[in-house]
């Protein structure tokens, strides 16, 4: 080994703690990039392959009724490759616990080749006896412990059907299973899909040779937009309720949002970590060069070129980057496997896809090399200005005046000796002060994110189910009924309050943007919905306008006062222009709210409702079990419980973020303190000679760090707020918005975490102080 490289090696070995700490920051950045990128690619490719293999729909239509000749008409359309009718209805499923309300979607599946949305049989086989065999969707079967050979009991039209489970299957349509767009979280124990033969479905739902849904494959899937308009005209007479393009399909949309968000994270996290690592490296190398000024002069005198010396110091940075990226790429690759599995299990893709892309590994290496070497060269650039002759002479002492605090004599007089040392150092080492404070600010801001996110999720769900929606139960009908049905329900269960509700899907258009959303008709004096604006002002349902949720305002880019087009699919009902009266402070769900009377009159039929909302302490679920025309009973308490389950998973994810913040904080504080100790050996030696113990010196360093930590936290507040705003904007989707204000306890939690990380770094730095040979430092003049 060249002796110049040997010097490098020994230097790194000597300061291994610092090198490892920075390498760890690089490693986490690269690991996040590689792990997220690889696993997301696996998810993306897996979903695509699944879609191709099982012929996933390009467009689907929900309508009142369409016969075989109507479907034949669709098939004849020039852009259509194939079309398939389907019968789909929701029905209650009888389960052992009478108090538990479980719903299933009963979906017909044809006995033909080249089925659209074909099933992927995981266990058992295909339907044999078309009158009593059923296939169960994997997630539901797993959640409820349903096995092949078990019997299931859907209740259709008030009648109990006993069906035998012939197989467990996956479906490209239900990669992510949600009952509807209003539920953000899957509830696989409460809702599932049963696939039955067409014959059985047509018989039990009274759809002889007819269907209420059509699945369509296009010759060119990119033409789905144009096709939608053509299709509307073609099937107008069949009572179209919704035309859903693939990009609007709930399951695909959720997966796509996940992929988009994850890709964004894969780009942001590494940049944050590499940025921090680059800052530490640049400062570390520049301090190193400053301390090695004489040695660099000697090297130049011996005959080493500027280029050799610059490369020598840049190699320090390169080694940090290389170590970090090797660890990062390796662990990232290792983590990508379980992460991809987790993704592919969460989003039910029945086969494992593993794509090893060198591209991401290469980018990982290249990213760390660019950042680290760049930072190293930046830090070492002062080498070029070192003149060997001058570097041999000791630097003249710096001109130092009084610090700000020394000018406040009243305070200064009353400060003890060690605090004087502390304050003087804090104010004098301005670069160190800025570096450490900014570093702490980044740590605090990174820690604030998970703290806030936890609050956001809590706020999002607790506000939605408790503050915004205030009913105890929501009872949905399987078809519109007269308002009298509410009276009937109040006779079946003890209610303290009851209101009818009309909920129907409509397409709302604003310019070129459009979305099929659930429009909810409510009593203008509703007690069950707390309709307020984000500024807290109460919103009222007017007799000719509508209110929209925040995610909808975001999706359609609509503001209060805008006029939108409401497209009505119901035969003989006209589309209408309607004014947006306000945006409701609702984080979850795409909804619009109208006065129920206005909605009945203009959009549907007078006196009709699709469900009721009640307040009751009665055994509602049990009593509603066999009630005809009731498709589902949801309690707000159940939804809250589902959220609690969900937050357990979220905790794990957020803890990783908190750990990331810790790595950044540790690396910054540890490196900064170690650099400071190295530079202040003479000062500490003098203090030792004056009679201070190592513990007292350690306390001085701790006090300095804590003062800078306090300052950094204050600086971190606006930085954290800005980061969170950025996060909220980039993670805003059409399913939810995250606009909750940052709670005081999030700040406290983030500050406590930051101080904790600083103390850990301080502990490791104190070991160095204990090992320092102060006498040697006093007599030594070699570097």
């Amino acid at each position, binding site marked *: 080994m060249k002796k110049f490289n040997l010097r490098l090696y020994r230097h790194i070995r000597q300061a291994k703690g610092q090198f490892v700490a920075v390498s760890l920051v690089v490693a986490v950045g690269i690991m996040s990039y590689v792990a997220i990128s690889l696993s997301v690619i696996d998810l993306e490719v897996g979903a695509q392959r699944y879609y191709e293999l099982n012929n996933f729909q390009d467009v689907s239509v929900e309508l009142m009724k369409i016969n075989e000749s109507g479907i034949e008409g669709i098939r004849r359309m020039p852009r259509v490759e194939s079309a398939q009718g389907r019968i789909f209805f929701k029905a209650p499923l009888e389960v052992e616990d009478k108090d538990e309300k479980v719903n299933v979607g009963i979906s017909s599946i044809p006995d033909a080749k080249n089925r659209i949305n074909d099933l992927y049989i995981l266990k058992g086989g295909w339907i044999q006896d078309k009158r009593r065999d059923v296939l169960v969707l994997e997630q539901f079967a797993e959640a409820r412990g349903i096995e092949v050979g078990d019997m299931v009991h859907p209740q259709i039209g008030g009648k109990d059907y006993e069906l035998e489970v012939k197989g467990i299957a996956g479906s490209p349509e239900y990669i992510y299973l949600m009952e509807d767009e209003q539920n953000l979280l899957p509830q696989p124990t409460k809702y599932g899909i049963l696939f039955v033969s067409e014959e059985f479905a047509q018989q039990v739902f009274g759809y002889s040779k007819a269907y209420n849904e059509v699945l369509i494959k296009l010759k060119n899937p990119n033409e789905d937009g144009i096709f939608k308009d053509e299709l509307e005209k073609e099937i107008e007479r069949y009572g179209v309720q919704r035309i859903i393009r693939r990009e609007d399909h709930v399951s695909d949309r959720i997966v796509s949002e996940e992929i988009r968000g994850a890709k964004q994270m894969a780009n942001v996290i590494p940049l944050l970590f590499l940025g921090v690592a680059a800052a530490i490296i640049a400062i570390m190398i520049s301090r190193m060069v400053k301390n090695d000024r004489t040695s660099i002069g000697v090297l130049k005198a011996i005959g080493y070129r500027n280029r050799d010396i610059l490369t020598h110091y840049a190699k320090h940075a390169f080694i940090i980057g290389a170590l970090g990226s090797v660890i990062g790429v390796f662990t990232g690759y290792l983590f990508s496997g379980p992460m991809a599995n987790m993704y592919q299990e969460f989003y039910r893709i029945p086969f494992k896809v593993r794509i090893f892309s060198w591209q991401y590994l290469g980018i990982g290496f290249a990213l760390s090399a660019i950042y680290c070497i760049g930072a190293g060269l930046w830090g070492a650039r002062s080498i070029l200005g070192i003149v060997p002759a001058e570097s*041999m002479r000791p630097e003249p002492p710096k001109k130092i005046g009084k610090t700000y605090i020394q000018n406040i004599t009243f305070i200064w007089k009353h400060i003890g000796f060690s605090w004087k040392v502390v304050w003087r150092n804090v104010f004098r080492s301005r670069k160190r002060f800025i570096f450490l404070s900014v570093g702490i600010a980044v740590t605090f801001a990174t820690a604030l994110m998970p703290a806030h996110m936890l609050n956001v999720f809590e706020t999002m769900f607790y506000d939605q189910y408790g503050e915004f929606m205030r009913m105890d139960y929501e009872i949905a009908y399987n078809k519109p009924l007269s308002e009298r049905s509410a009276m009937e329900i109040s006779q079946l269960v003890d209610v303290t309050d009851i209101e009818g509700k009309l909920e129907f899907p409509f397409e709302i258009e604003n310019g070129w943007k459009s979305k099929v959303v659930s429009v909810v008709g409510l009593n203008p004096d509703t007690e069950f919905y707390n309709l307020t604006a984000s500024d807290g002002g109460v919103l009222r349902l007017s007799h000719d306008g509508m209110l929209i949720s925040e995610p909808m305002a975001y999706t359609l880019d609509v503001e209060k006062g805008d006029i939108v087009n409401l497209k009505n699919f119901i035969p003989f009902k006209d589309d209408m222009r309607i004014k947006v009266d306000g945006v409701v402070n609702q984080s979850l769900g795409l909804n619009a709210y109208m006065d129920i009377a206005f909605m009945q009159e203009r959009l549907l039929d007078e006196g009709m409702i699709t469900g009721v909302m009640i307040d009751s302490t009665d055994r509602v679920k049990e009593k509603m079990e066999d009630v005809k025309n009731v498709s589902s009973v949801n309690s707000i308490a159940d939804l809250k419980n589902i959220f609690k389950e969900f937050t357990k998973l979220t905790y794990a994810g957020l803890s990783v973020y908190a750990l990331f913040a810790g790595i950044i904080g540790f690396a910054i504080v540890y490196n900064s303190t170690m650099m400071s100790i190295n530079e202040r050996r003479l000062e500490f030696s003098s203090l030792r000679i004056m009679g201070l113990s190592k513990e007292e010196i350690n306390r001085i360093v701790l006090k300095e760090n804590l003062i800078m930590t306090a300052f950094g936290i204050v600086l971190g507040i606006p930085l954290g707020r800005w980061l969170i705003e950025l996060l909220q904007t980039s993670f805003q989707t059409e399913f939810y918005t995250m606009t909750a204000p940052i709670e005081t306890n999030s700040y406290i939690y983030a500050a406590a975490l930051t101080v904790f990380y600083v103390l850990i770094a301080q502990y490791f730095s104190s070991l160095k102080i204990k090992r320092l040979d102060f006498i040697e430092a006093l007599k030594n003049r070699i570097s």
Partner: protein
Amino acid sequence: MTGKTTLMIVEKISKCYQMGEVEVRALEDASFEIYDGEFVVILGPSGSGKSTLLNIIGGMDVPSGGNVLFKDEEITLYGDKKLTMYRRNSVGFVFQFYNLMANLTARENVELASEICENPLEVDLVMEEVNLTERMDHFPSQMSGGEQQRVAIARAVAKNPDILLCDEPTGALDFKTGLSILSLLNKVNKNHGKTVMIITHNAAIADMADRVIKMRSGRIISDKYNKEPIPPERIVW
């Protein structure tokens, strides 16, 4: 001095520094020649410009005026790259405070210099020459000042340079150790025929030189040959 090859010609060298609004003249019209194999002592009090002169001769600094010719090549016209090559292959430096690399052993410090030269000497032989065979694997912090200075001399000699430039080589050493260093430099001069130039404020050292150039306030005030240089062992201060 007839019969000797001229190694270096210093012609009317001057050096000015700007310190704020004041111009400091560190060197003024310094001219002399150095011959191959000479042992030269440049003697002067602090601030007399001797270190500045040494730095210019060694290619570590550039003059404000005048020129320096080394083996008929004008080094004062050299760019940074050529000056580096000049320092690398033609000059060996010995500093007052040794300036060794702390994390390299004695031998490694010497190799650090020798491995970049065109025509280096065998490191083991040089270490033997400076009597450090036993201490070769010690780090500077494990060595005395005298030993460290020996390593510094070995580092300069191992490069096999044409001239050794020593800046107060005994300045940080006690009398006895100082003498041993002077003996070593004398040995390098006599046994290896290397030109050695020492700058010092210690007048006693001048007695061992072939030639003594005295400086004061940036000027050369005398340039004389010693008729009978005394061996370093007889020097007293």
